[in-house]
Every structure is written in structure tokens, then in C-alpha cells.
């Protein structure tokens, strides 16, 4: 896990709302190695998706501002729109949350899987279609050759997500972003799709960045995890360390709120309050209003990530202290 493929440094994405710039993602930094799964976890609206969209430069140009540095294979990317278009789908690809709507209803599935190859590799239609059938087999679609000629509405949700994965993998990207790839699927299919992603990541030596709000998914597939709250990473480290000893009270809350079959539904913990809206962020630690451990300093000082043990960082004044 030393061969870093993607480095994100101080990524800050702001949106122009009501005459002011409000950061939706602030100072996010992380590394992603080849053959590694990094999970970004957090509640809805904490900036997980915006982080990925910023890296891919998929946000609308008007009304958004992206700062910071992104390096793919050590080379800075992300200023020239045309160069980014060539990278997307070729060296970095993305899988969306909704397999039901992310495929074009009027085009055959095989053609849609073949398209990235025609766009980025310049393959002829016939060659790309052949390759598409091979990709559909790779993601475990039975009788791929005949199914390639079908339309998306003839596929189930799980099968469509497999098609999306085949599309994303067509050009063998180095980094794969998966934005809640299993949220829209039922639990048994979730496990299959996650297993497939893991296998493919390992076979191709990709870096997989998995966005999820489910700690269960994190435990199942991730090597490292980054917990995001209100646009910033509040705790990051190897999965086993975080699950065994969470430092940030927010991480703790997330872990306590995983439903477990041996407990009653009433016993599920829920963190009081809600994520503050983007234009009403508190001054100091943004988790302070909901935090059980809050001290006075939390309301004025914005905590930074401090290394607890090697590779495990947390940003909490009470638990992790301030950098010396």
C-alpha cells in the first residue's frame, strides 16, 4: 500500500449561495493507493459526493469554485476542461448511486458499455461491441452476448449496476469512484455488487474510492476509512483501528447507530440534531452543537487532524487535543 495513485491536497469546494461563497468541502486531503479501498463515510449533505464531483470536475462551472491540488499518478490534474474530459472514463471512472436512471433508456446495453472504448480508445464499433460482451461477462452477467442487445428496462437493478460497473471498467481506470453504489439495491444484491467491486479492484489493481453512509458497507469492504462531517474529514485511519477505537465523538455516534439484529429498534442510537446547513455553519468545531463532549473552546477553535496512532488521525479538541 505504498504505490499512491491519487493524492488530494487541501481540496476546498465552495458554492455561491445568496451572494456569498460557502465552502461545502473544506481542506480535504487524502491519499489513495493502488489496490486499496478507501471509504468516505458521512451523513447526507456532509460533502462526500461533492468531494468526488470536485475531483472529477463534474460540478457546474457557474456558481462553484474548486481550490486545492489533485495529483493522479503524481501529476497535477484538473484545470483544463478538455484534458479532464480525456481523463474521465479513461483513467478515472465513476459509478453512480441510481442504476435505474444512469443508463440511457433508448440505447442497447452493449452499445453503452462499448461507448467509452470508442470514445477513449478509438475502437471501431464492432471491436468495441465485442469487448463490451467480454466486459459484461467479467461483471457476471449471464449470456452476455444476447443480453448486450437488450435495453436497460429489461435488466434488474442489480444487473444494471453490474452494467454500470462494466462501463466504468471498460478503459481499465486507475481510480474508480463509487458513489453509494449499493444504496438503491436490496441487501442480498448489495453483498454481490460489493464483492464484485472488491474482486475487480484487486484484479485490476485499481484504487477504489467508495462513498457510503453505511458503516456496514465500510466494515465489509474498506481498507481505510475517512469520516466526513460538514465538509471536512474528522477522523481517518485503517478500518480495524477506527471500528475498535473511534476517537471522534461523531465516529463513535455513527458506529453506535448501526442497527444490530440482537438489539431492539428503540436501542439504536441516533445523534441528536442535524448537520448544520451550508450557510449557517458554526464558528469553531462544526460538530460542537451536537457533541456530548463539548467544552467552551469547541465553540471558538476549529480543530485540525492530529495523529493518534500511526495512520490514524482525528480532529477533536477534547479527545485528540491540539497540535503542539
Amino acid at each position, binding site marked *: 500500500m505504498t504505490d499512491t495513485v491519487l493524492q488530494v491536497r487541501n481540496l476546498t469546494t465552495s458554492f455561491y449561495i445568496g451572494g456569498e461563497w460557502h465552502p461545502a468541502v473544506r481542506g480535504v486531503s487524502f491519499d489513495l493507493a493502488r489496490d486499496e479501498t478507501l471509504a468516505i463515510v458521512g451523513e447526507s449533505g456532509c460533502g462526500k459526493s461533492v468531494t468526488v464531483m470536485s475531483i472529477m470536475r463534474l460540478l457546474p462551472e457557474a456558481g462553484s469554485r474548486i481550490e486545492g491540488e489533485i495529483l493522479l499518478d503524481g501529476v497535477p490534474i484538473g484545470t483544463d476542461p478538455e484534458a479532464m474530459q480525456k481523463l*474521465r*472514463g479513461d483513467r478515472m*471512472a*465513476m459509478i453512480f448511486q441510481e442504476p435505474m436512471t*444512469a443508463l440511457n433508456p433508448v440505447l442497447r446495453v452493449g452499445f453503452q458499455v462499448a*461507448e*467509452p472504448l470508442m470514445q477513449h480508445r478509438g475502437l471501431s464499433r464492432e471491436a468495441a461491441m465485442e469487448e463490451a460482451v467480454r466486459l459484461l461477462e467479467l461483471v457476471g452477467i449471464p449470456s452476455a452476448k444476447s443480453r448486450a442487445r437488450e435495453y436497460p428496462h429489461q435488466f434488474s437493478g442489480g444487473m444494471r449496476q453490474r452494467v454500470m460497473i462494466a462501463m*466504468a471498467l471498460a478503459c481499465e481506470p486507475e481510480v474508480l469512484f463509487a458513489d453509494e453504489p449499493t444504496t438503491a439495491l436490496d441487501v442480498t444484491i448489495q453483498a454481490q455488487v460489493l464483492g464484485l467491486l472488491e474482486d475487480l479492484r484487486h484484479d485490476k489493481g485499481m484504487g477504489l474510492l467508495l462513498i457510503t453512509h453505511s458503516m456496514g458497507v465500510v466494515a465489509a469492504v474498506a481498507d481505510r476509512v475517512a469520516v466526513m462531517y460538514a465538509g471536512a474529514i474528522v477522523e481517518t485511519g485503517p478500518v480495524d483501528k477506527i471500528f475498535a477505537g473511534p476517537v471522534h465523538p461523531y465516529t463513535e455516534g455513527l458506529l453506535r447507530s448501526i442497527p444490530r439484529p440482537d438489539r431492539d429498534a428503540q436501542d439504536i442510537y441516533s445523534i441528536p440534531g442535524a448537520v448544520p446547513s451550508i450557510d449557517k455553519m458554526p464558528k469553531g468545531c462544526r460538530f460542537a452543537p451536537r457533541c456530548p463532549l463539548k467544552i467552551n473552546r469547541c465553540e471558538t477553535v476549529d480543530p485540525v487532524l492530529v495523529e493518534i496512532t500511526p495512520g490514524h488521525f482525528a480532529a477533536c479538541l477534547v479527545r485528540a487535543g491540539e497540535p503542539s
Partner: protein
Amino acid sequence: MSATSASSGGLVQTFNRNKLSWVGIVLFMVLCLIAIFAPFVAPYGPIDQSVMTRMRPPSMEHLFGTDAFGRDQFSRAVYGARISLSVGVVSVFLGMSVGGLLGVLAGYFGKRIDTVIMRSMDVLLSFPTLITGIVIVALLGPSLTNVIVAITVTLIPKFARIARAPTLAVKERAYIEACRAMGFSHARIILFHIVPNILTEILVMASLWTANAIMIEAGFAFLGLGVRPPTPTWGGMIREGFEHIFQAPWMSIFPGLCILLAVLSLNLIGDGLRDALDPRLKQVRDMG
């Protein structure tokens, strides 16, 4: 919209259920065949004159009667179908291609491109169709090509509007975002992902406006702005018959009926298509 385009099988079924739209299709096909095989269908040449048989009423010899030059009106109507139909089809095809493309570009790129394209379309739209046509034909001179040009120009802004609205809706769909995430070029997204999704809506309008174009052509011919005589056109025949409307009403009535049939067939096709494509109407039918 996604439901209709996803289930093209259901589309054909719905279209089939509408008997009248099949009447329209058959009628239009017959008219097209007549136009294509005019030399075999017409009993006489379209400009063959005969002093002996001037202004004869309809008979077995001359189905539609004869005109002031003794020309067989049926043969003229048959050849006239060539002009009317080709003007309708060609100008709508051109208007659809150019106007549709402009509308898609305006809707897809938005911002300044949208403003520039749509405001110029508004300028074109602000003139009545006939006036625009008359100006263009007056400038370029009356000929078949110029009539097609004139009608095309009046159709372009209409198609641009019709294409822009669904483009705005489709470009927000998740699969278009997925296309951008896959790094597809704008050209690929527009041609392979947006156009197939809005094509059905445009085709409905195309069939209805073909009828319209045929009427405009007839109007031009009636005003003497169309194809020059003696080439027969339906509008021109009505114009010629107009002078003898009381002595020989058949001279105007039959070409008028031809226009009626062509327009009717296209409107029936258009209605059938629209019913088959409108999800709201479909819902009502499914419930009933």
C-alpha cells in the same frame, strides 16, 4: 417520457390500436406511390393541350374534367402530387435537421449560445409564415428550389423551439451526467444520447408540419409565387380554375380535394403518433 421511449413495443401497439392513423398511413403511401409512378398512372401528359376538349366536366374519359386548354385535370393532379409532396417532405426534412440541431445546441449548451440562437429564432418567428415566404420567393424568384428554401426558413424556428424544450429536460437526466463522468465528447452526448431521446417528439411535429408545408406551397402557387406554369401544382390548378369557378367548378374542386387528402392523411398520422407518445393519454387508456 422515459417510459414511452423505453417501451417501443408498446408504442407500436398503441399506434396500431388507433385505426384512423393507419388510414392516414395508407392514404399517404398511396399518394406517394401515385406521385412516384405518375407517368404510369396519368392517362394523358400533364401539359398536353387539346382544343377539342376544353372545359369538359368530369367523365370516364377525363376523371377530373379538363381545363381551359383542354388539359386532363386528373393527369395534372397526378403530376401535381410530385411537387406538393416533395416540397412538403423536403422542406420539413431540411427544417427539422437545421432547426432541430439549432434547438438541441441551444438547449444543451445554454447560456450565451442559447440566447443567440433562440433570439434569432424569435426574430424569424415574429413574421407570419406567408410573409416570410413571400419575401424570400420575391427576393430569389419563383422556382421549386426557392419555394422549398422559403418554407424551410419558416420551419426552422418552429423546430428549434420544439427541440430545445425536451433537450433541457433530457440533459438533466442522470444518464447524461453519467456520460459526462465517462468523459464523452459533447458531440457524442448530443448525437447518441440526447437526439434519440427527443426524436419521437420531433417526428410528431414533423408529420403535422408536412401537412402545413403542403398547404403553404399550395398557397404560394395560388398567389403565383410557386413553380412556374405550365408545370402542374395543386395550388396552381386551383388558381387557374378560380377564373372559371362558375362555369367549370371541377377545375378547382379536384385539386382542392387532393390537398385535403394529403393534409388529412398527414394529420391522422401525426395524431396517431402523438397519442402513442403522450404518456398522459396512455395512462388514461390503460385505466379505461
